[in-house]
């Protein structure tokens, strides 16, 4: 089974802190994605990566950056956390049959 793991299930940070969310997949997938999910707004794509060291902005990249130094790991970085970044963050990797496998999610609260 494909496994996508995320470093934390719950995270509480303070405004202005730098936050790192880590995602690891074990199936050698080239494409990985970061989404945030908010009530009434659904899943929104923040950033995605085609391959190592390659990244593309999604629909809502402002306030975020990403890093992909190794194929299995895709990190989301909040440079200076703000309260409007309180959300559920979901990482996914894409299979060669076009489906996506999601991690369990990180519920981030910014105080």
């Amino acid at each position, binding site marked *: 089974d494909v496994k996508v793991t995320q470093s934390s299930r719950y995270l509480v940070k303070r405004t202005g802190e730098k936050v790192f969310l880590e995602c690891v997949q074990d199936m050698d997938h080239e*494409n990985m994605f970061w989404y945030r999910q908010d009530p009434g707004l659904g899943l929104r*794509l923040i950033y*995605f990566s*085609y391959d190592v060291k390659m990244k593309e902005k*999604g629909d809502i990249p402002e306030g975020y950056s990403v890093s992909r130094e190794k194929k299995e790991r895709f990190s989301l970085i909040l440079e200076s956390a703000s309260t409007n970044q309180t959300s559920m963050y*979901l990482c996914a990797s894409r299979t060669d049959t*076009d*489906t*996506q496998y*999601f991690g369990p999610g990180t519920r981030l609260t910014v105080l």
Partner: protein
Amino acid sequence: SQKIEQNSEALNIQEGKTATLTCNYTNYSPAYLQWYRQDPGRGPVFLLLIRENEKEKRKERLKVTFDTTLKQSLFHITASQPADSATYLCARPGSGAGSYQLTFGKGTKLSVIP
């Protein structure tokens, strides 16, 4: 932009009945549509993919249809059970360079009442 809409935010259904969820898309027909299940506090889980040239696809009690004339996909759960209660998301791929991406609908929360 390519939009995808799930018109019902919530659907309540009696156990044993067939649940039918609707997904509508705009502009051109995508090469495929996907359906996912999401339980509270969890990541979505892939259920079914149906391609443009497939009218219908089945997996156990699940059935998905793809109507390019109506620009619509229907997702059916037959003999529904309380364990089927979850939020169901449909998704379509982007176009061109964005074809690796998926755009998700906001989901329909299904509640199966015993």
